C-alpha cells in the first residue's frame, strides 16, 4: 500500500514539474529568436531581469498586472470547465465594466455598500453580455465561438457609441478620448500597498495593488469552492468532461451550460475593475483591450483550475513585462517580441500537454 502511495506522489511531482519544463523550453526559444534577430541572448536576459525582477517594486508591478489577467483567465476557465468555449470575454468586460462604472457614477451610496455594488454590477453587465450567445447555444445550437466573436465587435461598437454620445461626461466631441463622467469617490478602489509593509514588503505608491486584489482572492476562492466542493460545480465539470455521461446520469446539461456561460461572463465583467475604479476613475472606450484573449491562453496554461490560473496569470504578467524590457533595453524589434511571446506560450502549453499525456500513460501502465 505504501509503495503505491510513493508512486502516486512521484507522478504528482512530475505533473507539477511539467509547466516548469515548458517554461524553461520557452526560454530556450526566446534565446534562439534573440540570436536570430542578431542580438546577444545574455543582454536580452539581463534586460528582462532588470526590467521585471530587479526590485521588489518591479515584482509588485507584475502582481498588479496579473490581477485583471487573473479575472480573464478564471472567466474563460469556468466556461471551459463546462465545455463552453467563451471567446467573448473581451466583449463581456467592455460591457460589464461600463455597467459597473455607471453604478459607480450614478448611485449615491456609502463606500461600504457602493464598492460591492459596483463589483456586482460589473458582473451583472458581463453576464448580460454573455446572455444572448448563451441562449443561442443551448436552444438553437449556435456555436458560441462564432456568436461570441461577433458579440465582441458589437460590444466595442456599442460602448464606443455610448461613451461618445449619451453617456459622455465631457460633452460630445470635447475630448480625443471620449469618457464617462467621474465615478463617485465612494466607489473608487483604494490601494492596499501599505498592508504589505506589515510583512516587510515596501511597495511604492505608483504600483497598483488595490481592492481589486481582494475581489480577485475572494472570487478565486468562491470559484474553487463551487467547482470542486459543490454539487453544481461537480455537474458543470461532468458536463465539460462528457456531455454524454452527464446526460446519461440525469444532469440538466443545457441549464448547466447556460449557467456556466453566464458565470463566465460575470467573472469576465471584473477584468476592468482595476483600471476603471483604481487607476482612471472613469470609464472610457480606451481601457486596455485584448485581455479577454489573453484569458484563453491563461486558462489553457492554468489547466482551468483556479490555482493554476493564479500562476498562469502571474506568468503572463511577467511575459508582458519581459516584452517591455526587451523593447526598452535591446535592439529586438517590437514585432519579434510578439512572436517571442506567442511562441513562449505555445511551448509552455505544448510541453505541458505532452508531459501530462506521458505521465498519464505511465500511470495507466503501472495500474495494470
Amino acid at each position, binding site marked *: 500500500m505504501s509503495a503505491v502511495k510513493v508512486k502516486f506522489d512521484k507522478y504528482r511531482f512530475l505533473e507539477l514539474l511539467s509547466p516548469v519544463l515548458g517554461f524553461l523550453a520557452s526560454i530556450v526559444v526566446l534565446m534562439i529568436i534573440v540570436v536570430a534577430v542578431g542580438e546577444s541572448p545574455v543582454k536580452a536576459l539581463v534586460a528582462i531581469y532588470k526590467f521585471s525582477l530587479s526590485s521588489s517594486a518591479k515584482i509588485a508591478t507584475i502582481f498588479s498586472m496579473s490581477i485583471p489577467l487573473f479575472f480573464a483567465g478564471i472567466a474563460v476557465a469556468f466556461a471551459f470547465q463546462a465545455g463552453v468555449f467563451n471567446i467573448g470575454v473581451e466583449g463581456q468586460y467592455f460591457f460589464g465594466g461600463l455597467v459597473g462604472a455607471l453604478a459607480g457614477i450614478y448611485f449615491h451610496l456609502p463606500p461600504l455598500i457602493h464598492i460591492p455594488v459596483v463589483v456586482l454590477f460589473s458582473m451583472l453587465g458581463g453576464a448580460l453580455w454573455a446572455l444572448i450567445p448563451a441562449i443561442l447555444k443551448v436552444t438553437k445550437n449556435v456555436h458560441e465561438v462564432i456568436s461570441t466573436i461577433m458579440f465582441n465587435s458589437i460590444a466595442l461598437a456599442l460602448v464606443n457609441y455610448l461613451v461618445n454620445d449619451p453617456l459622455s461626461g465631457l460633452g460630445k466631441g470635447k475630448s480625443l478620448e471620449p469618457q464617462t463622467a467621474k465615478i463617485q469617490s465612494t466607489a473608487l478602489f483604494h490601494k492596499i500597498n501599505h498592508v504589505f509593509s506589515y510583512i516587510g514588503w515596501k511597495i511604492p505608491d505608483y504600483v497598483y495593488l488595490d481592492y481589486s486584489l481582494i475581489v480577485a482572492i475572494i472570487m478565486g476562492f468562491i470559484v474553487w469552492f463551487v467547482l470542486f466542493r459543490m454539487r453544481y460545480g461537480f*455537474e458543470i465539470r*461532468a458536463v465539460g468532461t462528457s456531455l454524454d*455521461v452527464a446526460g446519461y446520469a440525469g444532469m440538466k446539461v443545457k441549464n448547466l451550460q447556460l449557467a456556466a456561460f453566464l458565470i463566465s461572463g460575470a467573472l469576465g465583467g471584473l477584468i476592468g475593475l482595476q483600471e476603471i475604479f483604481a487607476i482612471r476613475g472613469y470609464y472610457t472606450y480606451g481601457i486596455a483591450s485584448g485581455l479577454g484573449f489573453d484569458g484563453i491562453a491563461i486558462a489553457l496554461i492554468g489547466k482551468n483550475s483556479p490555482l493554476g490560473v493564479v500562476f498562469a496569470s502571474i506568468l503572463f504578467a511577467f511575459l508582458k513585462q519581459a516584452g517591455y524590457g526587451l523593447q526598452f533595453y535591446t535592439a529586438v524589434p517590437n514585432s519579434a517580441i510578439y512572436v517571442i511571446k506567442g511562441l513562449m506560450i505555445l511551448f509552455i502549453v505544448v510541453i505541458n500537454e505532452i508531459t501530462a499525456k506521458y505521465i498519464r500513460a505511465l500511470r495507466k501502465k503501472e495500474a495494470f
Partner: protein
Amino acid sequence: MPVPLLEMKNITKRFPGVLANDHVNFNLFAGEVHALVGENGAGKTTLMKILYGLYSPDEGEIYVKGKRSVIKKPREAIHYGIGMVHQHFMLVPPFSVLENIVIGEETHRAGILDMDAPAERVKKIMEDNSLFVDLSAKVEDIPVGLQQRVEILKILYRGAEILVFDEPTAVLTPQEVKELFKTFREMKKQGKGIIFISHKLDEVLEIADRITVIRRGKIIKTLNIEEATKPLIAELMVGKPVLLEVERPTVKMGDVVLEVRDLVMKSPRGYDVLSGVSFEVRAGEIYGIAGVEGNGQTELIEAIAGEVKLESGDILLNGESILGWDVRRRREAGISHIPEDRHRYGLLLPYTLAENLTLGMHYKEPFVNRFQVINRKKIREFARAVIRKYDIRTPSELTPAHALSGGNQQKVIVARELSAEPRLLLAAQPTRGVDIGATEFIHNQLMVAKKEGRAVLLVSADLDEIMSLSDRIGVMFKGRIIKEFTREKAVKEEIGFYMMGEKE
C-alpha cells in the same frame, strides 16, 4: 511429425509494469484450427499483434514453415502468408466487394485499372473455399456475415496460409456462425492453418482441433480436442473453478413494471429506427431482446431511459406514462441503466471511483448537505462499501476510473446502477468485452435483481447470454419485435431465423 506451418518460440513482450507475453510457445499445423482462449488482458492480442508485425517481441523467434522469419510490419506478415480478420472490419463501405478485396493490390495495364483478371482470381478462390459473395454488391449493402467473408477473401487473395480470426463470431447470428465454420472446414482441406480467438467455449469445442489457454501472459496448457471440456477450459482460463451455468432462482412474477406501446422513432435521415415496438416486463422478470445489432435495440433502450425523443407511442412505468419525463425524473422513479457503451456514457473516466459510484445520485443526501456542498467523506464511505460488496478490484476508491480494467469498469457501473435499488433495470450489452470472471459476476447480479423483484430488460448481441438469462425473449428485427418466445419454448436456431428476418 510434420514441420509446423507456424511456430512461435519463447515469445516475450514487456510493457512498462506488465509482462504481456512470458516465454510463450505456440504452433500451428497445416490443416488445423488452433483455438487461442484466455481472459481479456491475458495476452492473446499481444501475441497476435507480434505475429502480425504490429509489435516486435523483446525475446523469441517466429518460424514460418520451419524458416526463421522476422516480421516487423503487417506487410511483411502478409508476405509470409499470414492474414488477419480483425474484430472490426477494415472495409470501405461504399466500395464494391471486388474493390474491397483487391484494394492495395490493384493490377493495372499501362496505368489503367484492370478488374477482370482479379475478378477471375477471386472467383477461383471463392470456388475453392465455398465462400460466395456477390462481387458487384456494395459492402455497405450486405449483412455483417457477408462482410466478414469479404475480409476472409481479402486475405486469401493475398495468399494467406495462416489465418488469424479475432473473435469472428461475436457479430454473427447462429446461422452465420455455421456458415463460417463450414468455410473453416473447407480451408482446412486446402491445407491452411487457422488461429481462432474466441470467448465462446461451445464454439471452440465445436470447431477447434487443439485449444491453447493463455493466462497472465503465460501458456497454461495446450489441449487436444478429445481431452477438452467446457469446465476444464474455463477453469484453466480463470485459474479457479467457474460456474458456467447461471443459477436461476424461481421467482413469482409480479405486476407489469414496464409497458412499451407502439414506439416509433425516426433517424435524423428520416427512416424508421423503431417502427412500432410493443412489449411489457413484469417485476421479477428478465425480458431479453435478441437481434442482430443495429435493428433498433440501442435506440429502444435510450428511449426508455429518456435520452432520446420519440415520434409516437407511449412508455408506462407502473402504469404511469413517463414520456414527458427527463432522465433525472425517470431515474428517481426507479429506472437504472447499464449503458451499451460504457466509455461513452457510463463513466467519467478521469474522475475517481468514488465520484463514479455516486454519479446520478450525487445530488442526494447524504452525498451533499442541504447547502449543496459535497460531503466527500460520505461519498468515500459509500464507495468503499460498494467496492467491498461488489468485489471491484481497485487500489482505492480514489483511483481514477480509466485506470481500471474493462471488467472492473463494468462492475463499477453495474454496482452503481443496482445500488440505486431500481424497479426497472435496463441492461444493454452488460458483458460485452468483459472477461469470464466479471461476466459470471454480472450474470449473478442480474439474477439477484430478479430475485429481489426488479424488472430487467436485457439487450445482448450474444444469443447464448439472452437464452441462459431471460424468462421471455423478444426478437427484434428492423425496429420491431417480430416474435416472442417463452423461456421453455425458445430454440436457438429458430430465434436465429427470426433475427435474420427470414420467418416473418
